[in-house]
């Protein structure tokens, strides 16, 4: 059953994180691009957040709204379905990515069209919708600038907000020059790497596609249960084009994107733009409720996507990852992401949030998913900036425990017991030995004394399976006398230490 879940064909066969990161770290262009981009946005985000005196209260309210919704998700899903239907939309349910892809393919085929325009959407990336549409003869055009760069460059996304963050302006110009012609209007003659010229080239290239498109496909940032309203937050206007010009609109949205009431948007419309692009407000936000006579698409389909979300919801510690509003602030502050880049995470969700989301949505069966909980130094910067206060380090540690020790998890809606992962044998032996020693004071004391007396003979690195561990760490020096011995000898330091 676990094989039934689609994870986006572009990531099949990814090596484990350490191996993939190793290649990225040795690529100076990539490291330079990432360092420049993440440092630019980091300082700006801090300024945008500092403008709001009640940031902590907004963050807490956002956390509580999402937690409440998740804890009553069944009720709000039913309410949303009713509101969307009343407003003129059609609601479809998809238990996994394959099912969502089949539904969308069928809806597109029913229109008789063979091409669609797409708003940037994490959910459709996650399920590999473009590839599924291609298999039935439908061409999907990405219209977000960064997605366009990725699509034209036959590349993979490396950032939630800016999927082409790993590309600098020179590389983007080269991709536009060599690839645009094969997809439609070629890049203008003499295109330089000035960002304004690159944006203009994308405008010209995509405009003919917008004007003739009959089907648009989107995700959504929020769905309001009480009103049936969907919200898409964007910058370029490509979202507005796809949401309003076509005759048919299909939105594929994860079931966790619900908020209960219209009023709840007042929290997230303040925290999301500042967290993601460091703006007081993003240039364009579209809100639509079903269909409107004479304005915009005549048919609206909402595909509600589970694809591992209900499994994630079953984990009492891990479910907080479903609060995520995909702002990407955690990527931009993460020292590991800054050096390893997004591709090493082997998922459309890179960075700290990806390290806790991918192994929960997909399970820890593959090498890359089992390694993701370790793709962190646990510094906690991600938790500090998260606008819905997801305690990412807490979930990382929880998932590490699950990988090493195994235990009960939910996969595809069924409870299964995971066996302890291979490759952590030495760690388990060491931990068992430590437990044995710590619960026997006499043995601990004898061991500490031996260690102290032989300390000049200790090697600087560990032999055998421990070598990998000590290759990047110093072994702690052993003191001449243990604390317990010192305490007993001096009666707790009375009469002066030593």
């Amino acid at each position, binding site marked *: 059953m676990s094989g039934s879940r689609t994870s986006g064909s572009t990531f099949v066969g990814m090596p484990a994180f350490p191996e993939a990161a190793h290649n990225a770290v040795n690529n100076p262009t990539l490291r330079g691009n990432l360092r420049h*981009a*993440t440092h*630019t946005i980091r300082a700006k985000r801090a300024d945008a957040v500092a403008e709001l*005196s009640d940031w902590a209260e*907004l963050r*807490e*309210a956002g956390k509580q709204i999402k937690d*409440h919704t998740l*804890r*009553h998700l*069944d009720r709000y*899903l039913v309410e949303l379905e009713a509101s969307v239907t009343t407003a003129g939309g059609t609601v*479809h*349910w*998809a*238990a996994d990515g394959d099912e969502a892809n089949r539904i969308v393919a*069928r809806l597109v085929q029913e229109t008789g069209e063979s091409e669609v325009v797409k708003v940037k959407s994490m959910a459709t990336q996650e399920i590999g919708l473009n590839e599924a549409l291609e298999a039935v003869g439908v061409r999907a055009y990405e*219209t977000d600038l960064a997605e366009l760069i990725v699509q034209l460059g036959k590349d993979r996304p490396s950032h939630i907000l*800016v999927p082409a963050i790993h590309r600098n*302006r020179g590389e983007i110009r080269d991709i536009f020059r060599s690839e645009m012609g094969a997809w439609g209007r070629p890049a203008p003659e003499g295109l330089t790497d000035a960002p*304004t010229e*690159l*944006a203009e080239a*994308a*405008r010209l290239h995509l*405009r003919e596609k917008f*004007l003739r498109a009959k089907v648009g496909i989107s995700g959504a940032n929020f769905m309001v249960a009480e*009103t049936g309203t969907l919200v898409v937050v964007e*910058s*370029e*206007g*490509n979202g507005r084009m796809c949401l*309003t*010009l076509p005759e048919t609109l299909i939105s594929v949205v994860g*079931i966790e994107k619900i908020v*209960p009431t*219209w*009023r709840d948007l*007042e*929290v997230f419309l303040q925290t999301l733009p500042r967290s993601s692009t460091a*703006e*007081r*407000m993003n*240039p*364009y*936000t*579209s*809100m*639509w*409720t079903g269909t409107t006579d004479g*304005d*915009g698409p005549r048919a609206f389909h909402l595909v*509600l996507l*589970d694809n591992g979300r*209900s*499994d994630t*919801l*079953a984990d009492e510690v891990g479910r907080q990852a479903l609060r995520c509003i995909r702002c990407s602030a955690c990527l931009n502050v993460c020292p590991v992401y800054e050096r390893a880049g997004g591709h090493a995470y082997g998922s459309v969700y890179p960075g700290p949030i990806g390290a806790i989301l991918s192994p929960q949505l997909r399970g820890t069966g593959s090498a890359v998913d089992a390694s993701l909980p370790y793709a962190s130094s646990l510094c906690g910067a991600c938790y500090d900036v998260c606008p819905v206060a997801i305690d990412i380090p807490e979930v990382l540690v929880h998932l590490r425990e699950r990988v090493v020790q195994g235990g009960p998890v*939910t996969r595809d*809606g069924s409870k299964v017991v995971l066996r302890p992962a291979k490759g952590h044998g030495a760690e388990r032996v060491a931990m068992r030995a430590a437990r044995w020693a710590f619960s026997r004071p006499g043995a601990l004391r004898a061991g500490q004394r031996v260690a102290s007396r032989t300390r000049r003979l200790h090697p600087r690195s560990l032999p055998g399976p421990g070598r990998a561990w000590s290759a990047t760490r110093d072994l702690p020096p052993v003191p001449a006398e243990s604390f317990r011995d010192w305490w007993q000898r001096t009666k707790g330091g009375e009469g002066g230490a030593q």
Partner: protein
Amino acid sequence: MNRVDRVDRVSSRERVLGRVRRALADVPRDDGTPYEGAVARAYVAEHGDRSVEQTVDLLAVNLADYRAIVHRCAAADLPAVVAGMVAARGAKTLLVPSGLDPDWLSATNAERVPDRADSSLTELDRVDSVITACAVAIAETGTIVLDGSLDQGRRRITLVPDHHICVVRVPDQVVSAVPQALERLDPTRPLTWISGPSATSDIELDRVEGVHGPRSLEVVLTFNNPFPNPL
């Protein structure tokens, strides 16, 4: 839709809802607490304490900060200001929603193109400029919101042309912050929130203005004389 599809859909709905319910086995079922009590909303309705005039000033500052061009004029001068903008742009054609106050256009000679359901997108793409009113404007974020009323038109008319003129009646249509704007808006209408002209941060996470939407946004803050006195 054939019968098999229908059966499939019903069962997927039940499958997803069943999984969600089993996943929440640890959560006490609905205890009847109203939603309003479930979330602590300790955040403020607006940031800072401003007079009406200061709120309008803040709107102007924040609009300009995101590269909108801001004009201020008394209602009586609006036709001349509109004519000036259209002339400065060199616009020959002007898209006009059906319910726009005709006085606003009384001083311009640009050819009016009505907002019609059967206009083709190619026709709209050839229009030089569009002029609309708005539903509400938010000072703290420099945002104007359109709700598809007759003086604002269909969503596409403010999207396809490259130049958008938006008239805001101050201070009536201006609120300080996002929560107050949501209170005024009707979620059943199609809403477009606009904060500056189209932009992107996709090249090296640095903001560049001008992608698919109008690359020029001009906002006119118009007031009835005399402007409300802060005293």
